[in-house]
């Protein structure tokens, strides 16, 4: 190894090298390790905040009960699991809506606004066209929410496609415009009342499995399955992947990039709009003022879903798991706050933040590996030895 003496620059102790595509085993291993670290930090947090009065076992069993119900108690389990299912399905639906846009490297962080517009459109039908024949009204509700969501998604897409307008900032701003429009209708309908009452029962979406939101769960899951095949098996899905990898390659291959961008965002916005419409028609039966956090049309999932879609790497199965994890954290910490006053305010979001940071940071080890100095040397040595023996 006379070469090493000639190198003027000292090799750093550790350097970063890119990996190829991570193997499934590695992905699962890294995710499991990230979750383990998150669990550790959360446990320390719980112990410190609980001041020793809250045992870890107790805390986690409370979180479990808050998400899946008290084990053995059929009634509690049924209530909790249905509730978890609808919110997880909704989060899954928005994540699924974002997947094609993200795969195209179009940063649609406007899902919140697209959901709001869809929900609002449906609400207008329920409020002003309640006397239409029911089947006609239901169809109308579904059509307008899809169209309004799609419009809200297409506007930034057109500007991105023709003038390269920054879509992250554009879609972000569109959220707030949508919320203010909804506030306008909320205040107008509310009039002098202190809050907007629910719409008349005749306008509600039909219920399924004894739950008003039964159809929502079914439709959201069907959408997820359809999107999986759309992205994996269709020509349009392939075009999205090519545009996402390199717009220039796509152009060279004869793909109309503008058309793909606008079409994909129309789909993304339409699904968000449908999610909003169904939430209003079948679950909330009302709209809420945007400043009130609870029972809004979106539940804030327009933002949460961005994290879900990205962490799942556009994999539908992964999205289901992460959506469930987020539900466990949201509902579980809610229950924790009910049981122990120390966790009543904010603690839930802190723990969600910790878990997300761990998963986000852990993803590094899927795409990169650390190369230590000593290790590289011995490897090089092996190589030269092999070469020598070959000669």
């Amino acid at each position, binding site marked *: 190894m006379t070469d090493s003496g000639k190198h003027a620059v000292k090799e750093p102790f550790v350097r*970063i*090298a*890119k990996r190829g595509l991570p193997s499934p085993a590695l992905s699962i291993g890294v995710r499991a390790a990230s979750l383990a670290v998150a669990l550790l930090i959360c446990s320390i947090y719980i112990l410190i905040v609980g001041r020793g009065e809250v045992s870890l076992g107790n805390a986690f069993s409370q979180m479990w009960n808050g998400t899946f119900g008290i084990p053995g108690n059929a009634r509690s389990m049924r209530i909790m699991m249905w509730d978890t299912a609808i919110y997880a399905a909704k989060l899954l639906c928005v994540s699924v809506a974002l997947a094609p846009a993200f795969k195209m490297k179009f*940063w649609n*962080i406007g899902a919140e606004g697209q959901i709001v517009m869809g929900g609002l459109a449906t609400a207008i039908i329920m409020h002003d066209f309640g006397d239409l024949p029911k089947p006609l009204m239901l169809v109308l509700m579904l059509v307008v929410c899809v169209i309004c969501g799609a419009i809200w998604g297409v506007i930034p897409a057109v*500007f991105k496609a023709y*003038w*390269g*307008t*920054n879509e*992250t*900032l*554009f879609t*972000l*701003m*569109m959220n*707030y*415009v949508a919320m*203010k*429009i909804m*506030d*306008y*209708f*909320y*205040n*107008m309908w509310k009039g002098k009342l202190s809050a907007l009452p629910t719409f008349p029962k005749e306008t509600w979406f039909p219920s399924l499995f004894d739950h008003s939101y039964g159809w929502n769960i079914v439709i959201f899951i069907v959408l997820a399955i359809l999107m999986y095949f759309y992205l994996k098996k269709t020509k349009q899905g392939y075009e999205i992947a090519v545009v996402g990898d390199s717009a220039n390659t796509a152009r060279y291959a004869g793909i109309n990039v503008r058309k793909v961008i606008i079409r994909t965002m129309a789909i993304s916005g339409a699904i968000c709009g449908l999610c909003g419409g169904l939430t209003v028609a079948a679950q909330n039966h009302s709209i809420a003022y945007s*400043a009130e*956090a609870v029972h809004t049309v979106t539940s804030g999932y327009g*933002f*949460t879903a*961005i*994290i879900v879609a*990205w*962490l799942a790497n556009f994999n539908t199965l992964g999205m289901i798991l992460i959506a469930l994890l987020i539900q466990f954290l949201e509902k579980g910490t809610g229950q924790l706050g009910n049981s122990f*006053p120390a966790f*009543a*305010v*904010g*603690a*839930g*979001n*802190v*723990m*969600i*933040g*910790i878990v*997300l*940071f761990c998963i*986000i*940071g852990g*993803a*590094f080890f899927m*795409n*990169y590996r650390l190369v230590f100095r000593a290790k590289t040397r011995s490897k090089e040595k092996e190589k030269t030895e092999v070469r020598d023996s070959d000669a």
Partner: protein
Amino acid sequence: MLSTILSWITRAILFGVVIMFGAMGETLTEKSGNMNLGTPGIMCIGGAFGFGCTYLYEMNTDNPNAFLSIAIALVCAFVISALAGTLFCLLTTTLRANQNVTGLAMTIFGSGLAKFFGMFIIPSGVVTVKAVFANKLFTKSMPVELGSGKVATVIEEVFFGHGFMLYVAIVIAIAMSVFLKRTRAGLNLRAVGENPATADAAGISVTKYKYLATSVGAGIAGLGGAYYILDYNYGGWSTGAAGGIQALGWLAVALVIFAIWRPLNLIWGSFLFGLCYWLYNYIGVFGVRMTSAQSALLEAIPYLVTILVLIISSIHKKRENQPPAALGLAYFREER
């Protein structure tokens, strides 16, 4: 009439200072190519810790010292927020995580941490606590007397009738503009945000600049949160206050675009946003009558104007009006 307009301007300025701090922090961060969507959360953190520390200080001392009270609020807000910025940079620069995702997670985390920390300070069963002493210091207007004429009163109210943080904000904005335009370090920082590969080849430490800009930027944004509680919100903290800061935090992100990434534009831009925000309350000045429902639409104006600026600057394609070219992209030296 005059007093109505004066009170509108005063409110707009108070409002503007909050988002000016947030937008200055975000501008510095974005100049390094990091888009920190965690700014609303970081402002919440700054508000909670700035308020909390100075509140604990004045509750536990018999004769609180004015200088210490201000210093504790500002230093705590700055340091804790800067740490949050460092965490963001650790995830996005060192671990190369996606910036949008990390930023949104930071906003969730930050608002949670703020509410959580605030709850620890509030005695149980109380909704709002006030840092009375610090509030007095922050709202104290400048000791300028211009006589008793009508013009003099107006000038006094508009230019000197505010707490010291307004002047601090303007000084920081001017200093930041000089730093970015006239100093070598500022040039290097812009190079990192425009083209990190070239900056790297020129021997500039991309990592160092990103860390410094993001951390200091987050610290400055955090000061906006502290100002929100101690002046704009009359010194009172409640769990709802965190939501208020978060809403303004998104406006701060909008303001950065509106000002096309120039600190000097932030000064008038923030007051303009303030006027727009409070327009619904004072629209009677123009002889227009509005229902409370219609005023919700007026609140959308700042966002619509921001969208318009974004569209116009992208259609015009003037090079000096564009976002930093590498905004939102992680840099990896071995990837070309």
